[in-house]
């Protein structure tokens, strides 16, 4: 059994670079150029509609929550507000970070900054970490965004549903960035020219949280924190639920997104919150395709992909036992079969990357 070292400065990352696993050429389903061009086309209209709806709902839910405060009748409105603040911000951060949500660049940037603040990610740092996640998806020691590290610590995963590990990591790092500077790990993927921005963003966030806490102390109430900050905890569950499914239980150290990413059919509310990132294999294969075109991309390439999971519950039913098996054997992973119409996995290539586990776990 191989022990994994997820540190970006550790031996697994160095080995991935030495073996050519890092920054490798990944498998892509063939899509005719004309069709792909049509899928990649940008448009402001869908994201403007969704953004107005999102922010409109947030204002309405928070407004009713404040009006009913401190009655328990306010609770459902806080829960709804929390999911939009602490979970929908994850997908807005993601899509606008790619620059594909809107056609107009400043709109992407504005929503990206707001979403980064709400999801508690330094917008300057995370733009780069996500680029690395796309270069080296689920490559141990290279990908800084691996949600489930093997062997899984279930207590940490469950705490994640309440945002606790993320917030516990974010706050000290925000203060470090604001008062000390860029962290050595961040220096491995954030170019030096961006370091001043990392510090500036951290200082702005520190000032906003400082003002919110001061207001709460002044009012003798946690109400200001119910609006800013705490929803990142009480509303995180949805983005954690969908995020774990992206790669959990699947192969690591491979260069075919069909092996390491999961597409899940979801209900329309979850798809609005998640902005269609349930089409995750498709997104990783073609990050140029905006969220609103992912269902069309899925239809165009599904003949070459493993069958999607049919629901969130069914996907968890598949992933959770796999995570448990990884407690006993870190190398175990789920290898889903491809339809007869698909190009086969490059066994030769992945055997080199995975060793005997590639076939043993089938």
């Amino acid at each position, binding site marked *: 059994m191989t022990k994994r070292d997820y540190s970006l400065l550790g031996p697994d990352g160095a080995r991935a670079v030495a073996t050519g696993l890092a*920054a490798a050429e990944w498998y892509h389903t063939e899509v005719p*150029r004309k069709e*792909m*061009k049509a899928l*990649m*086309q*940008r448009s402001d209209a869908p994201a403007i509609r969704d953004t107005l709806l999102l922010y409109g709902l947030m204002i309405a839910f928070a407004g009713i929550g404040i009006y009913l405060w401190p009655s328990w009748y306010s609770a459902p409105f806080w829960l709804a507000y929390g999911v939009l603040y602490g979970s929908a911000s994850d997908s807005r951060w993601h899509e606008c970070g*790619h*620059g*594909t949500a809107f*056609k107009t*660049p400043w709109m992407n940037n504005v929503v990206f900054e707001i979403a980064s603040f709400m999801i508690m990610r330094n917008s300057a740092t995370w*733009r*780069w970490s996500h*680029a690395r996640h*796309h*270069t080296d998806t689920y490559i141990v020691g290279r990908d800084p965004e691996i949600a489930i590290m093997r062997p899984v610590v279930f207590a940490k995963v469950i705490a994640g549903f309440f945002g606790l590990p993320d917030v516990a990591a974010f706050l000290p790092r925000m203060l470090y960035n604001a008062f000390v500077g860029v962290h050595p790990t961040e220096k491995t993927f954030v*170019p030096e*020219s*961006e370091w001043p921005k990392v510090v500036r963003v951290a200082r702005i966030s520190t000032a906003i949280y400082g003002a919110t806490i001061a207001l709460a102390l002044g009012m003798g109430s946690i109400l200001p924190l119910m609006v800013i900050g705490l929803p990142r905890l009480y509303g995180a569950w949805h983005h954690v639920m969908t995020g774990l499914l992206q790669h959990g239980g699947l192969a690591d150290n491979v260069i075919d997104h069909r092996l390491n990413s999961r597409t899940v059919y979801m209900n329309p509310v979850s798809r609005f919150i998640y902005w269609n990132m349930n089409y995750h294999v498709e997104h990783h294969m*073609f*990050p*140029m395709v905006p969220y609103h075109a992912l269902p069309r991309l899925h239809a165009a390439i599904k003949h070459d992909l493993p069958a999607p999971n049919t629901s969130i519950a069914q996907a968890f039913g598949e992933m959770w036992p796999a995570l448990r098996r990884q407690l006993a054997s870190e190398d175990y992973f789920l290898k889903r079969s491809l339809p007869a119409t698909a190009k086969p996995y490059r066994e030769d290539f992945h055997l080199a990357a995975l060793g005997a586990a590639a076939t043993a776990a089938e």
Partner: protein
Amino acid sequence: MTQWIDACATDDIDAEDLIRFDHAGATYAIYHAPDGKFYATAGKCTHEEVHLADGLVMDYVIECPKHNGQFDYRTGEAKRAPVCINLKTYPVKVEGARVFIQVS
């Protein structure tokens, strides 16, 4: 020494699109702008070793297919993170129905 290389026919590239062109061990991207003009740049993104030919041309910008970095392909200027380094550009001329690029 510089030389003009016959790269492609004008109708090999749709308007607002690009193609890959390889010559003498080097790779280039050749663009057909919406105003009908042609441009040429280095073929690979300056962020990582990814060819731009699968990217998206929007007006005068090429977006890289890997991380959505953007360049103005007329000047090579890096326009959007994660690209920070400008792209090399090459002179282009059209003679008849052929597109030529000047390489050294």
